[in-house]
């Protein structure tokens, strides 16, 4: 059938001669199987880190944020660094599911579910930091516009911090419904395969009674497309607004019009790195190498390379503009970043974010799984340093040299950060065992155009060959489960 045609030059996105049923079995396998020992080990470590983080948070809230390493000069440090880092990581999921959907990039189908999960879990971590930083988190509802009788005054809609509240909550909630809507047919698949009544019940609830009627699918596809159209400007707006937290201030080093695109590129960069970190491991332990192929990793590496280079251009533009502006405070802020007491953070950032992605120009390196994993970790570290550099180096030497100081994190700072990493992995590990981690319904739609068995069928018998019948049966494996 001509409708399944795909140019032969495109490499197959699904390998291993899969039939529709094989896709079902492979995606359901991690959910139906039992967790192995290594899952429990990693889960325990993540849980321990999470509990340690909870301890630090409880200590912070009961004692006050004086437990952090902040001082009068550096009054914003790891809290906001971690916030921006986690929000940035949370950008890849929606980028993959929304922007790549609009651009009709079929390779998103193998990875979009996990990328979206990662987005939601990391935005949750991000949201923790402003709430902890409030000191009295039980008054967190004061950030919503409630009448004066409840709190002190109305919220200030001129403040970028309030824009953040709206941007992050819109982003989190829209990403969540986008993710969940996509999950419905896949939960339904697990529900219909479930053997125990308990499992059937649970997945029945999760699937919202999805039945797969033709009309439901028609609406499903339209909703996905419109949500993608809405989420695309949304994902760009979120980190734009996060960058406004800094850009609308008058602190040298923050007061920069380049911040919005620079932050968005950096967010996509770090998000893809985190997707690579997680999926390189998950495809191995969950036996999903046929769906998350080396090609997927390679394409993500190319995105990392391009966004890393954009970030590099932004770093250099910042330096140029600081010099060209003729403002000596601005010039000093950047000179101090590169050569001051925090030079090591600056150059760690430069090396990790600008230099290391350039290796991805070499096809051999970007197709190497070990190397991709290594670079993804390097990029994650680099992007944390980027936020640290922007925040701490800009304020630790202010206009009054007598108040210049350094920032020393306490165990509470590090503990809270480690705690969020633990929490993130707890959520992701639970997800990996209980959710369909591949959008199997979507993958089935591209099986005939992009499955290797169908591609070789067309190569052998011509593009007009039927995509069903005996010839296909020979080329697909028949599993009997």
């Amino acid at each position, binding site marked *: 059938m001509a*409708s399944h045609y795909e140019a032969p030059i495109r490499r197959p996105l699904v390998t291993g001669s899969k*039939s*529709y*049923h094989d896709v*079902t079995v492979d995606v359901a396998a991690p959910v139906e199987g039992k967790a192995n020992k290594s899952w429990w080990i990693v889960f325990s470590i993540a849980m321990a880190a999470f509990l340690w983080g909870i301890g630090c948070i409880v200590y912070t809230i009961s004692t006050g944020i004086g437990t952090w390493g902040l001082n009068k000069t550096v009054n914003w440090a790891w809290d906001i660094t971690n916030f921006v880092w986690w929000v940035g990581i949370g950008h890849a999921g929606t980028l993959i599911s929304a922007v790549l959907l609009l651009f009709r990039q079929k390779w998103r189908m193998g990875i979009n579910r996990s990328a979206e999960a990662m987005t939601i879990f990391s935005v949750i971590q991000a949201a923790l930091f402003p709430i902890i930083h409030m000191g009295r988190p039980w008054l967190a509802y004061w950030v919503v*516009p409630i009448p*004066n009788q409840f709190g002190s005054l*109305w919220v*200030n*809609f*001129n403040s970028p911090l*309030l*824009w953040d509240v*709206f*941007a992050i909550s*819109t982003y989190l*909630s*829209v990403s969540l*419904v*986008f993710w969940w*809507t996509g999950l419905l*047919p896949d939960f*339904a*698949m697990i*529900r*219909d*395969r479930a053997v125990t009544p308990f499992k059937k019940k649970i997945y*029945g*609830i999760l*699937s*919202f*009674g*999805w*039945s*797969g*009627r*033709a*009309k*439901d*699918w*028609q*609406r*499903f596809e*339209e*909703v996905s*497309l*419109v*949500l993608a159209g*809405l*989420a695309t*400007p*949304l994902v760009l*707006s979120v980190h734009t*607004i996060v960058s*406004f937290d800094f850009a609308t201030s008058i602190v040298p080093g923050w007061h920069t019009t380049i911040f919005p695109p620079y932050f968005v590129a950096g967010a996509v960069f770090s998000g893809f790195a985190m997707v690579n970190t997680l999926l390189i491991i998950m495809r191995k332990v969950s036996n999903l190498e046929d769906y998350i192929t080396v090609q997927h990793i390679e394409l993500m590496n190319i995105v990392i390379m391009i966004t890393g280079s954009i970030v590099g251009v932004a770093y250099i533009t910042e330096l140029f503009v600081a010099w060209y502006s003729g403002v000596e405070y601005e010039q000093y802020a950047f000179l101090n970043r590169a050569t001051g007491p925090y030079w090591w953070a600056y150059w760690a950032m430069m090396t990790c974010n600008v230099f290391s992605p350039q290796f991805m120009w070499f096809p051999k390196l970007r197709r190497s799984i070990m190397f991709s994993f290594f670079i993804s970790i390097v990029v994650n570290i680099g992007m944390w340093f980027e936020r640290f550099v922007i925040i701490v180096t800009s304020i630790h030497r202010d206009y009054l040299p007598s108040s210049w100081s350094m920032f020393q994190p306490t165990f509470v700072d590090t503990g809270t950060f480690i705690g969020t990493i633990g929490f993130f992995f707890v959520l992701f590990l639970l997800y990996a065992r209980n959710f369909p981690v591949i959008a199997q*319904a*979507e993958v*089935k*739609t591209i099986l005939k155009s992009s499955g290797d068995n169908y591609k070789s069928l067309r190569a052998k018998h011509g593009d007009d060959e039927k995509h*069903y019948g005996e010839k296909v049966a020979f080329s697909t494996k028949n599993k009997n489960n």
Partner: protein
Amino acid sequence: MASKVIHALYTDDDILLQAVKKVRDERYHIEEIYTPFPVHGLEKAMGLADTRIAITSFIYGVIGLIVSVVLMDFIMIQDWPQDIGGKPSFSYMANMPAFVPIMFELTVFFAAHLMVITFYMRSKLWPFKKAENPDVRTTDDHFLMEVDASNQDENKLSEFMKNTGAVEIKLIDKNEDH
């Protein structure tokens, strides 16, 4: 409602599409089709009307925009005007640039959430809703076509459905109150 229906199961989307065309050419009535994934061109072949859910989303977005403008105008300009940073809050238009981010966010918020809620209501999807696909294999690799069999010669219809490539035919007596 048809009291008697035929459930014809297929194992391939291309065969299903051809079958839909044949069934409709013979003027049989397709009640419903259950598929494990969106089959491209199926709704056209079945003659389903286009969904209007995107239009609702647009309307919801416009509502969200209006809500955000009214909300911020009331809070910042009418109810408690303040002079923040030497920029007094006397008119919405003059202060509008600072309100653009939230105007945008609320537009998206309303458009996305209300559209998804509309979708869930229209397609009857919510927690504790019982699934209605007649065969559990329709979420795996089977495609089920439900054809109206009341006032039809059942044997002839079954035979016809078999010839369209169905792998399994079931005659279902839909007793309304069982």
